């Protein structure tokens, strides 16, 4: 029996359970009311319906989820026990190859067999799959009936179905939030595990402090020494994300926040702020080709015209400038919040002493808002160093350790993309290096976020 059919059947059962339980509750409650026991009626009939329907569906659904994980193992066992499996090769590798081929043919993903042995196993496979499919469906239906019947017997006028449904809803919400947390933990643990494998091949000291990055040479068999020094990557990331991008984003973001909060008339602010925020919604790949196709060639031509050597068409400056523009709304909205959080009385106090608006901003508002602005900038930095698309398209791949903004540098994220795209073997240091880089990036951005949020929080408390 196929998956969709079972689901349809279960949904139908659930609907029937809902309707019949509701009808039964309605009938019982009407009877209870007629006999004058008003207080004996607890929940609305609809809640009884939901209670029984959930009891019908949830046990069956849990069983099916478990069954899809167990069934393939049972099918394989069944096939191996069949007479056709007696002349399978003894070694595990070719044995599983034959089995995989037979399964592919049985499920219709493959039409002909390369190995004559697997042809003989197709029929046992088909039979076993069908057998366990039916068994699973039957068990699910039995469970659905059992659950539904159990709940149905509990439908009485004073049964607290409403409270039970509430509890189930809460459990559902709890599971939803736990899933997000568990996923995060899973991602972090896989990152840790693969990084651990990498560091068993490459010395962490060499990785963190080495200055030569050439994973290709390691992959081509020249050994892992001197190939995984990530310092040029770290420098490139900091150069683009924390220096060039911030040199653009901090002044522009701060000034636009000051204009919008202090000078702009409400009418101007009303259309200008949303437009600025649209910048944050532009997909980063669009920024990427803007950087790669427009800014980078223009910068190279400019650099060449003023006689700078080593100007590349994939320059740190191009990627950094465009990333800075991308970050502006981020810095601006954080600064906007911090400046707006400075009490109006500070501003009044300064103006009442004969200070001009710009004096008030420079000497009172900015110093008072500074912690919040710093927090916003740290968040922006963490965003910038994790940004991938712009640097992949505009920053280049050469791991140079240079101060020249017109030269090509590479970043951590670019190299991760580079290491993991295409066909890769998952046991080489070259591939695993991506996870180690990811781990470094994760730790750095996590620290930045923690520090930034603490700074912002402490500052908010100061004015509450």
């Amino acid at each position: 029996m196929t998956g969709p059919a079972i689901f349809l059947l279960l949904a139908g059962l659930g609907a029937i359970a809902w309707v019949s339980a509701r009808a039964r509750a309605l009938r019982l409650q009407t009877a209870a009311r007629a006999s004058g026991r008003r207080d004996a009626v607890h929940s609305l009939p609809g809640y009884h319906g939901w209670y029984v329907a959930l009891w019908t569906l949830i046990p069956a659904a849990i069983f099916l989820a478990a069954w899809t994980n167990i069934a393939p193992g049972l099918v394989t066992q069944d096939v191996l026990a069949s007479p056709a499996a007696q002349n399978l090769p003894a070694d595990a590798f070719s044995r599983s190859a034959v089995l995989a081929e037979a399964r592919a043919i049985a499920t219709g993903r493959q039409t002909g067999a390369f190995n004559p042995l697997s042809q003989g196993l197709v029929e046992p496979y088909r039979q076993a799959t069908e057998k366990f499919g039916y068994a699973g469906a039957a068990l699910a239906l039995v469970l659905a009936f059992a659950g539904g019947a159990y709940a149905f017997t509990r439908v009485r006028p004073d049964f607290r179905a409403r409270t039970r449904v509430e509890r189930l809803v809460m459990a559902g919400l709890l599971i939803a939030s736990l899933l997000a947390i568990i996923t995060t933990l899973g991602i972090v643990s896989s990152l840790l595990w693969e990084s651990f494998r990498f560091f068993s091949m490459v010395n962490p000291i060499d990785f963190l402090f080495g200055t030569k990055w050439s994973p290709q040479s390691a992959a081509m068999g020249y050994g892992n020494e001197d190939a995984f020094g990530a310092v040029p990557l770290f420098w490139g990331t900091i150069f683009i994300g924390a220096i060039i991008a911030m040199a653009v984003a901090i002044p522009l973001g701060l000034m636009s926040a000051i204009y919008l909060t202090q000078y702009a008339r409400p009418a101007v602010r009303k259309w200008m702020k949303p437009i600025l925020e649209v910048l944050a919604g532009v997909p980063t790949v669009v920024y990427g080709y803007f950087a790669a196709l427009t800014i980078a060639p223009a910068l190279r031509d400019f650099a060449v015209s003023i006689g700078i050597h080593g100007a590349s068409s994939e320059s740190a400056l191009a990627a950094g400038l465009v990333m800075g523009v991308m970050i502006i709304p981020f810095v601006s909205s954080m600064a906007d919040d911090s400046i707006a959080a400075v009490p109006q009385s500070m501003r009044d106090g300064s103006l009442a002493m004969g200070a001009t608006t710009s004096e008030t901003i420079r000497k009172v508002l900015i110093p008072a808002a500074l912690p919040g602005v710093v927090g916003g900038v740290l968040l922006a930095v963490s965003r910038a160093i994790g940004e991938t698309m712009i640097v992949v398209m505009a920053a280049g791949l050469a791991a140079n350790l240079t101060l020249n903004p017109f030269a090509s540098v590479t970043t951590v994220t670019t190299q991760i993309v580079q290491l993991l795209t295409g066909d890769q073997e998952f046991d080489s240091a070259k591939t695993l290096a991506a996870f180690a880089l990811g781990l470094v990036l994760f730790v750095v951005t996590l620290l930045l976020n923690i520090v930034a949020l603490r700074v912002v929080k402490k500052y908010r408390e100061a004015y509450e």
Partner: protein
Amino acid sequence: MMHEPQTLKAADTTTKMTARDVKVFYGEKQAINGVSIDVDMDNVTAFIGPSGCGKSTFLRTLNRMNDTVASARVEGSITLDGEDIYASTMDVVQLRARVGMVFQKPNPFPKSIYENIAYGPRIHGLASSKADLDVVVEKSLRRAGLWEEVKDRLHDSGTALSGGQQQRLCIGRAIAVEPEVILMDEPCSALDPIATAKIEELIHELRGRYAIVIVTHNMQQAARVSQRTAFFHLGELVEYGVTSDIFTNPRQERTKDYITGRYG
């Protein structure tokens, strides 16, 4: 009723500010209707009246702090030493240096005590050297009655002081710019009785050196600190006169009702 100017002309006083037929609007809503009043140099003037009567709004027209509210509009004329402060040639920044203000809630800047006082003199270039500035800071803190309490911790944060000390710091900050008029908008409403007594004492000491206008909710306070009292009701100036007359022998029925606690 008519809004004829209610002014007190006494030979021994010098008029510092005059207001004639002042009307204030917030958008469509009128907050002040035809107020005319003279503020003189030698007396403390108190504005009293129930909440929402417009006394604070009127006070804020005297140094154009209402300019910071986008929807506010002022009609009529207000002069400082005979000069129209709403004239287009008037420099608002200079006006506010001459007409200082102390607010309802103490609002020291999140800087040191020293920097709070030095803020105004720095902006207006009143001190040419560090030594000069030290002198200005000490003089202002002495006048504000705060010097003895803070002289050993001038570089501590102004926000770490008690509420009453913060308010005296704000008065000192206003004094440091050498204003001619000091406007106080319910300066004691956030303070305890002891801190209030200190501020009232300070107002007595400052009288004569600066023209002082104080808005207050508290009639006893008006009686204690002022020599002239103006009673506001529903955006109008109901009665203006010598404080002792207003409290013992009000001419208007509305004033009498308010004084005796009939409403407010």
